[in-house]
C-alpha cells in the first residue's frame, strides 16, 4: 500500500480533528473531499509531519509519518493552499532554493528549476520576481516548487483555488499529466468536486474528522436502472408522447438526449418495443450513474443522519 492510515486520531486540546481514520491507497490519485472544517488540511499536515497524531499511525510508501518524517518529506512535494513565496526571489531562484533545501546540488537544482518551470508553462517568465506574478501564475509556481525534486507523492491543497476557467483547465491538465505520464502519486484536496472527478480514481470523504466514504470512484458509483438516457434518430416528439402515455417521465437532457424515468412496473424492454413500433433508431442508451457530487451529498446526508441518531 502506498498510503495507509490506521486508526489515525488528531486532537487539538479537547477538540477531535481526525477521529480514528482508516484508509488505504495503492497508488495513483486520491481525491480528498469534505466540507469546511472536515479535517482535510489537518490530514495533509499530519502526513507531512507538521502535526503529531495522538493515536494511530500512518505510513507513506512504507515509511512511518512520525519515525521517518524527514524521509517522507524528501519523497513528498507539497503545494500549499495559500499564496506562498519567498520575498524578492525570481521564480527560477525560488525553485533552485527549494531544490537545494531538498538536497539537490546547485547545478542539478538549477537544471530542474528550468525544466519544471517550462513544464508548468512559466518558461518565459522564469526570471520575474514571483511577487509580480498573477494569482494563476503563483499557483503554477507553487506546483513547480512541489515538483522540483521529482517527488513520488504530490500533495496538492486546493490547487485550483481562485483560478479563472482557463487557469483551472490548465492546472487540471497538468495534474492529469503528472498522474498519467510522470510517475507521481497524487493526493488532491479540493472543494471542487469536478476537479477530483477529472483527476482521481480514488476518493476519501471526510466529515467532522471521520471517514464517511472511501474507495474507487467508479466502484462507488451506483447505477440506477430506472433512469436512462437515450439518443435517438427518428420522430422524437411521437416517441416521447408514447413513452408518456405508458407512464414514463421524459425530458430533454444534455446534447439532445432524452432522459426517461421508467415507472416502477415497467422494465427497460419497453423502450426497445416502443422504438421498434415507432420506427426509431436507438443510437445511445445508458443508465444514469451517480456523479461524484451525488456520492458526496449522499455520504454527507448519511453521516449527518447517523450523527444525529
Amino acid at each position: 500500500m502506498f498510503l495507509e492510515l490506521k486508526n489515525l486520531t488528531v486532537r487539538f486540546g479537547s477538540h477531535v480533528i481526525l477521529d480514528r481514520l482508516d484508509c488505504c491507497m495503492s497508488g495513483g490519485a486520491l481525491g480528498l473531499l469534505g466540507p469546511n472544517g472536515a479535517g482535510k488540511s489537518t490530514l495533509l499536515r499530519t502526513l507531512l509531519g507538521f502535526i503529531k497524531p495522538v493515536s494511530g499511525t500512518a505510513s507513506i510508501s512504507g515509511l512511518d509519518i512520525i519515525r521517518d518524517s524527514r524521509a517522507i518529506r524528501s519523497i513528498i512535494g507539497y503545494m500549499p493552499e495559500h499564496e506562498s513565496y519567498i520575498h524578492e526571489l525570481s521564480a527560477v531562484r525560488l525553485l533552485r532554493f527549494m531544490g537545494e533545501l531538498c538536497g539537490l546540488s546547485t547545478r542539478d537544482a538549477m537544471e530542474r528549476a528550468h525544466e519544471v518551470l517550462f513544464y508548468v508553462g512559466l518558461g518565459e517568465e522564469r526570471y520575474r520576481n514571483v511577487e509580480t506574478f498573477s494569482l494563476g501564475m503563483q499557483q503554477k509556481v507553487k506546483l513547480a516548487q512541489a515538483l522540483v525534486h521529482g517527488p513520488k507523492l504530490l500533495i496538492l491543497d486546493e490547487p485550483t483555488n481562485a483560478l479563472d476557467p482557463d487557469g483551472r483547465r490548465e492546472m487540471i491538465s497538468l495534474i492529469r499529466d503528472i498522474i498519467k505520464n510522470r510517475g507521481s502519486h497524487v493526493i488532491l484536496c479540493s472543494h471542487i468536486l469536478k476537479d477530483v472527478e477529472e483527476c482521481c480514481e480514488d476518493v476519501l470523504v471526510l466529515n467532522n474528522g471521520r471517514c464517511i466514504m472511501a474507495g474507487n470512484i467508479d466502484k462507488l458509483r451506483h447505477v440506477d436502472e430506472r433512469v436512462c438516457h437515450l439518443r435517438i434518430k427518428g420522430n422524437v416528439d411521437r416517441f416521447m408522447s408514447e413513452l408518456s402515455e405508458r407512464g414514463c417521465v421524459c425530458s430533454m437532457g444534455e446534447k439532445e438526449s432524452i432522459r426517461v424515468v421508467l415507472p416502477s412496473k415497467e422494465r427497460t424492454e419497453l423502450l426497445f418495443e416502443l422504438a421498434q413500433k415507432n420506427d426509431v433508431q436507438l443510437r445511445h442508451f445508458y443508465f444514469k450513474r451517480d456523479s461524484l457530487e451525488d456520492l458526496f451529498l449522499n455520504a454527507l446526508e448519511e453521516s449527518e443522519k447517523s450523527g444525529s441518531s
Partner: protein
Amino acid sequence: MPVYETGYKTRDWVAKGIFYRLMAFSRYTYLQLKGNRRIHTLFVMSWLTFIVALALIYACVNTKLIERFGIPVRILPSLNARFFMVYLIAQIPFVFFFTLAVGPPLIANDIHHKALPMILSKPISRWEYLLGKFLVLFLLLSSITWFPGTILFITGTLTLPGSSNWIMYFWSESIYVLPALIIFSLVVIMTMNLVALLFSSLTENYRLAGVELVMFIIGASFVSKIAAAVFRSRRWNVLSPISNIISIAESLFKVRNTTSIPPALAWFCLILLWAGCILVLSTRVKAFHIYKE
C-alpha cells in the same frame, strides 16, 4: 541539450548533506543583499577599523618611522589585550547596524509571505530552519568580528619586537587573547543574532521587527542608565545587554571592569536572554499554528 528541449520527469538523485542544505539560506540571503549599496557601504566601513588597527600595529613596530614624521611615540597604543578588546568593541556598532539591516526580514518575511509551510515541507526540521537563518547573520558578523580580529592578532604577534625568546614571551603573556577574542566575538554574534531572530519571528512586518530590535538594544541601555542614575547604583547596568557584553569582554581580556557588573552575573544574564530567545523561537517558528480552545 538546451533546457527547453527537456521535459519534467522524476529521477533519482543523491541528496546532499544537511549542512549544504542549511547553507542555502545564507546563499540566497546574500544573493538578495548583493545589490544593496547600504550593506556594501557598511561592510567597507566596518573594515576601515581593521585598516586603522593594522596601521597602528605597523606604527607600533616601526617607531623610528613615526618619529621621522615628528609624531610622538607615546600617543601610540600598546599592543596588548586591551588593544584587541577595543578593536572588537569598536566593531559592536557595525555588528548592530548589520544585524538591523539583515536580521529583521529573515523570519518576518517568510511569515508574511506564508513561506514556512512550503519550506518546512522540504526535508528540514524547524530547528534546522532556525539554524540556517542563524548562520546567515553568523557568517556575516564573523566576517567583521573574530575573523579580522584573528588576522590582527596574528599580524600583531608576528611583528612583535624581535628577541631570541619572543615565542616564549608570546605564549606566556598573550596566548589568552586569541580565545578571548573568539569567545567575545561569539558572545556578541550570539546575542545580536538571537535577539534579531526573536523579533523577526514575532511579527510579519520586518520594519516593526527592526524597530523592536532598536528599542530593545538602545532602549535597554537607556533604561539601565536611568535606573543607575535614579538608584545611584551602577549595578543597574545589568539591564543592558551591551553592558553585559562589555563586562564579559573585560573579564575575558583581563582588563579592569568598568561596568560594575560581575562577569558571572553578566554571563548569567546573557545566557538567560539566549535561552529566552530560543524558547520563543521554538514556539513561533512552526509550519502551522494551532489555536487551542
